[in-house]
């Protein structure tokens, strides 16, 4: 069913009883051309682009819970392409371009809001670092502006400009960055993929791999065995667990990242703002709640919740940057399971086991990558070669020394 103003009027006149489910609740077949493990944003985007771009629609997406129940439903909704390194910049910009056309492509309101992303800096050295990043962005054709303190003050007059400890010197602004409604992204991709023939199978956990003649030819699941010549893993924080079923050990640690939302207040923060003297980022949802987060807790976790020291740390970042929100109440906090890679950059590659493909290592930056991750993983699955903008995301780069250390902090997963 195509969503349009005409359809909406028709449905309104008939009491809204004609709306159908947004995607088919498919019964799993015994065989597909491609099986994607993981019904989050990345897995569903992969299925959509396999069908739309490559004409491969005999595809199943297997989700052990309900689609979008993992990190796709838990993130802070930020989309941006303000990366530094040549291995990252074109990929995230391709994702940004896909975001810009996504709602038309999916015929679904994903509330893509290009309200701007501003990274505040607090010293001359940090200004130079952000200028370098901005120039790297511009060299790749990505929009970037460097604001001085007066420029930031015009945009955000309520920040703490008197702070002697964290003086605000300016900010790096990407106007095309912003937010998107994470659940709608999942549902939009699910609906579009399902309409093209992709089977979305929920409550279906992969419990093992089926091998024949040295290659993987299918999966054992809680809803039966399913065979496919190509199987792509897109399970984020669960990557090590699923890969272990195939005897693979990955360069991944699963860590908890917490996120928070406040009570609803009147429109206060127009765009996305990040603190430069600590890890803190904030935006305001259309419902009025402030959506914010900060650092990882810093230890391995699958618990989908973190601990109080990090809560305190994130709120201290908020108070340091914008003490005006000090009396706003925190409504909810939660956590996700981040697939932290050893250099902070993702992996979209074959695994070395014939028939098995890996999409993982998104750390806490996977949401903005959703469209390009799906696009590039679909390309890899369809053509058995990496897409141009994902060529650096190799699994063997840790052994060969081609790490993509965007933050420049080294090969330890809890530092990224």
């Amino acid at each position, binding site marked *: 069913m195509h969503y349009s103003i005409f359809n909406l009027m028709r449905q309104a006149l008939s009491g809204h009883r004609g709306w159908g489910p947004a995607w088919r609740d498919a019964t799993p077949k015994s065989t597909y051309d491609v099986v994607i493990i993981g019904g989050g944003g990345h897995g569903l985007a992969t299925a959509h682009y396999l069908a739309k771009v490559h004409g491969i629609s005999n595809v199943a997406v297997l989700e052990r819970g309900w689609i979008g129940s993992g990190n796709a439903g838990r993130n802070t909704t930020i989309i941006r392409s303000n990366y530094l390194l040549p291995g990252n910049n074109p990929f995230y910009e391709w994702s940004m371009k896909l975001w810009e056309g996504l709602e038309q492509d999916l015929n679904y309101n994903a509330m893509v809001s290009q309200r701007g992303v501003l990274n505040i800096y607090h010293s001359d050295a940090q200004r130079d670092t952000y200028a370098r990043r901005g120039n790297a962005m511009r060299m790749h054709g990505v929009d970037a502006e460097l604001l001085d303190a007066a420029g930031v003050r015009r945009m955000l007059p309520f920040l703490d400009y008197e702070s002697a400890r964290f003086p605000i010197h300016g900010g790096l602004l990407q106007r095309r960055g912003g937010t998107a409604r994470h659940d709608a992204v999942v549902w939009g991709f699910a609906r579009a993929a399902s309409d093209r023939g992709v089977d979305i199978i929920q409550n279906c956990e992969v419990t093992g791999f089926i091998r024949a003649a040295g290659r993987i030819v299918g999966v054992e699941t809680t809803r039966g065995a399913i065979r496919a010549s190509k199987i792509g893993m897109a399970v984020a924080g669960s990557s*090590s667990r699923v890969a272990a079923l195939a005897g693979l050990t*990955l*360069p991944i*640690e699963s860590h908890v990242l917490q996120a928070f939302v406040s009570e609803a207040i009147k429109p206060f923060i127009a765009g996305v703002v990040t603190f430069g003297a600590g890890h803190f980022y904030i935006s305001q949802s259309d419902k009025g709640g402030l959506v914010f987060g900060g650092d990882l807790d810093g*230890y*391995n*976790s699958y618990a989908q919740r973190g601990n109080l020291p990090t809560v305190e740390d994130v709120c201290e970042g908020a108070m340091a940057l914008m003490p005006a929100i000090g009396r706003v109440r925190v409504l909810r906090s939660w956590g996700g399971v981040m697939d932290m890679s050893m250099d902070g950059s993702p992996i979209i590659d074959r695994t070395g086991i014939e028939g098995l493909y890996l999409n993982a290592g998104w750390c806490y930056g996977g949401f903005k990558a959703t469209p390009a991750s799906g696009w590039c993983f679909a390309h890899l699955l369809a053509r058995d070669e990496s897409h141009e903008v994902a060529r650096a995301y190799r699994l063997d780069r*840790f052994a060969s020394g081609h790490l993509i250390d965007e933050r420049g902090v080294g090969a330890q997963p809890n530092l990224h």
Partner: protein
Amino acid sequence: MRIQCPYCGERDLSEFAYHGDAAFRRPDPDAPDAAARFFEALYLRENPAGPHEELWYHASGCRSWLRVTRNTRTHEILAVSFPKPSASA
């Protein structure tokens, strides 16, 4: 989350710094497959969902290194001890 330091007693998480997986054993640099073994030791992780052997540093306390067994699904601390010295020289 609290960790029972053998010297200091039960202390809050914020007193400790996390090192990570305790499984690291420095490979023999003179072995013929040293490059592959160093790659595995440095970059690959079991990353289990469940009991995990890990090293924590009591940074704001006695500054001991602690070997902790912790359930990564629930954060429950199952065991704490001082690490034994490594067998390799």
